[in-house]
């Protein structure tokens, strides 16, 4: 048991990859079971690893026994263990959903590809979160992206616009990765190293301001494309709205979060926030564009009639919150961003899975189809309502804690305008979330068709997610403390 946990960092990436290769060859229902079991195992591994290494982090896992900086390493510290657990939890929810109400969305000859791609995506996102090597991060980003293009394109079987959405996603995703890799090139030119910790150490000894500035510019642009920062978000709404629901649950919950965490690591862990280029990029690019995303995403979500499009634009607005939070550049803001990432990840996954379950009973995707959902299927509707409440930032949910901490950090930093934008951005969802909640809870709707029932494989995991949102929202102290110490550790890593 102990030996397994020692090798957990390698296992939770390798296991999904191997399982994906096997699942792709199996019949559809076997593949879905393989995906679900593997994703649950990975979740168990990450949680077990967190518990067994409590207090012993940061831990470095050197692949092939080659010590850093020469070898490729995974670095698990207090900062990335939280997102690692989040990603594996979202992965488990999405994989279980392919057994439940998502099963009918990928059928026919390509049926077993969906679970395989899902597993590849989970493994790659965990790799993005845990790797300590700049180029390795690029490879994992691309494995995650290529599987994501495949997952989105699976939606084209039901609605041909899915193919075009996948194509646009591919163009933007590939450009983002290319920009990132140019940045890695400049980093390598200036330091001769690819290991994040080693690069940070070498930059302290021999700074190369011009190359650093060029490197950060490219790294920021590339990762901002992957994390869908306004106005580089153009690919996101249609890709998320047209992909199969299990794919959207994973992508909306975990993929943007992984890119944003990589950006936080590069910004605060490698360069440190003292470099003038970074201050410039954060204050004159990330801050105003984040603010614009909050307003634009919120407004577009109000006008979206399709439920999934509405949630996708809400994801754009939430990315805006995260970028505005990052641009504050303080430790409190970084901790708030971490809490907000967890709230968004759990919330979006719950919402997309619940929306898929609700849709099975009405076969429509518009918000109107949520009418009477509570009467038809109380469990799914409860999860849907809690997810919506967290998106809204209603008190007693984690969404509220995240937004509260962000506004608090903005005021502490003296950026009153940012706090005002965040408050406005929290009022906009009142319109679209309120409208949706009214449909779900109070309006009468048609009865459920005979013989169609929501599957427990979809409902049970999202009820757990919803419960987690409420529990961490009510008793937020442990999570907020953990996020605070995680942010402190990352800031200390990059301090000059």
């Amino acid at each position, binding site marked *: 048991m102990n030996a397994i946990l020692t090798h957990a960092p390698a296992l939770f990436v390798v296991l999904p990859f191997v399982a994906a290769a096997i699942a792709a060859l199996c019949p559809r229902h076997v593949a879905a079971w393989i995906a679900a079991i593997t994703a649950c195992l990975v979740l168990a591994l990450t949680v077990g690893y967190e518990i067994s290494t409590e207090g012993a982090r940061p831990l470095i896992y050197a692949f092939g026994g080659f010590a850093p900086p020469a070898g490729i390493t995974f670095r698990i510290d207090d900062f990335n263990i939280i997102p690692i657990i989040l990603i594996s939890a979202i992965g488990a929810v999405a994989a279980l959903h392919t057994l439940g109400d998502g099963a009918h969305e990928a059928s026919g000859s390509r049926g077993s590809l969906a679970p395989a791609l899902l597993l590849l995506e989970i493994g790659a996102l965990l790799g993005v979160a845990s790797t300590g090597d700049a180029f390795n991060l690029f490879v994992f980003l691309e494995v995650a992206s290529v599987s994501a293009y495949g997952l989105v394109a699976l939606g084209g079987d039901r609605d041909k616009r899915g193919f075009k959405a996948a*194509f646009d996603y591919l163009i933007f995703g590939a450009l983002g990765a290319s920009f990132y890799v140019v940045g890695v090139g400049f980093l390598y030119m200036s330091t001769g190293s690819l290991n994040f910790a080693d690069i940070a150490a070498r930059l302290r000894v021999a700074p190369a301001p011009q190359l650093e500035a060029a490197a950060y510019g490219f790294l920021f642009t590339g990762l901002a494309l992957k994390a869908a920062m306004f106005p580089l978000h153009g690919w996101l709404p249609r890709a998320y709205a047209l992909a199969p629901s299990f794919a959207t649950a994973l992508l909306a919950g975990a993929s943007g979060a992984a890119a944003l965490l990589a950006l936080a690591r590069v910004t605060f862990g490698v360069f440190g926030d003292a470099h003038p280029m970074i201050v410039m990029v954060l204050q004159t690019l990330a801050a105003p564009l984040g603010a614009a995303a909050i307003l634009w995403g919120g407004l577009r979500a109000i006008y979206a009639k399709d439920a999934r499009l509405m949630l996708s634009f809400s994801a754009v607005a939430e990315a805006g919150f995260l970028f505005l939070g990052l641009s504050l550049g303080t430790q409190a803001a970084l901790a708030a961003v971490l809490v907000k990432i967890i709230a968004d990840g759990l919330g979006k996954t719950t919402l997309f899975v619940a929306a898929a379950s609700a849709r099975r009973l009405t076969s429509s995707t518009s918000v109107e189809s949520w009418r009477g959902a509570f009467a038809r299927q109380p469990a799914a509707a409860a999860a849907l309502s809690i997810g919506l409440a967290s998106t809204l930032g209603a008190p007693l949910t984690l969404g509220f804690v995240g937004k509260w901490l962000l506004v608090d950090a903005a005021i502490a930093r003296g950026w009153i305008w940012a706090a005002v934008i965040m408050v406005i951005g929290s009022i906009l969802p009142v319109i679209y979330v309120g409208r949706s909640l009214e449909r779900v809870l109070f309006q009468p709707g048609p009865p459920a068709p005979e013989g169609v029932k929501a599957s427990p494989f979809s409902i049970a995991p999202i009820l757990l997610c919803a419960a987690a949102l409420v529990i961490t929202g009510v008793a937020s102290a442990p999570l907020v403390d953990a996020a605070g110490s995680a942010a402190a550790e990352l800031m200390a890593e990059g301090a000059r």
Partner: protein
Amino acid sequence: MNVDLADLAARINNIAVVGLMMAGLFITFASGHLVKRLIGLSIFQTAIFVFFITMGKVTGGTAPILLPDERTPIYSNPLPSVLILTAIVVSVATLAVGLAIVVRIKEAYGSAETDDVAAADIALDADAQT
């Protein structure tokens, strides 16, 4: 204007890379055909490969191979080339997925022209709204 020509000549690779990158980016966004847009993306990525490989070149350096008489010659840095080997694999995978999606777009829409696909999408969006 005081341009140091020798300095410029020493950085000719970077100028070529930037030129190729811009050409690739332009084709990616301005082309009217989806396959051409993927070709533009490939040019963009290839420019980055050139950037990495020229970065590792040492003047007068050879391949990093141990000679029979245990002599160590001046050799170019092999690491960027190795990284680019991986990046090429990644870009081939992306290109294959992209072309596969274009094939499916062609089947579904009957055209792979950007304008035709966009027009069909707008019509479908309008249908979905009503």
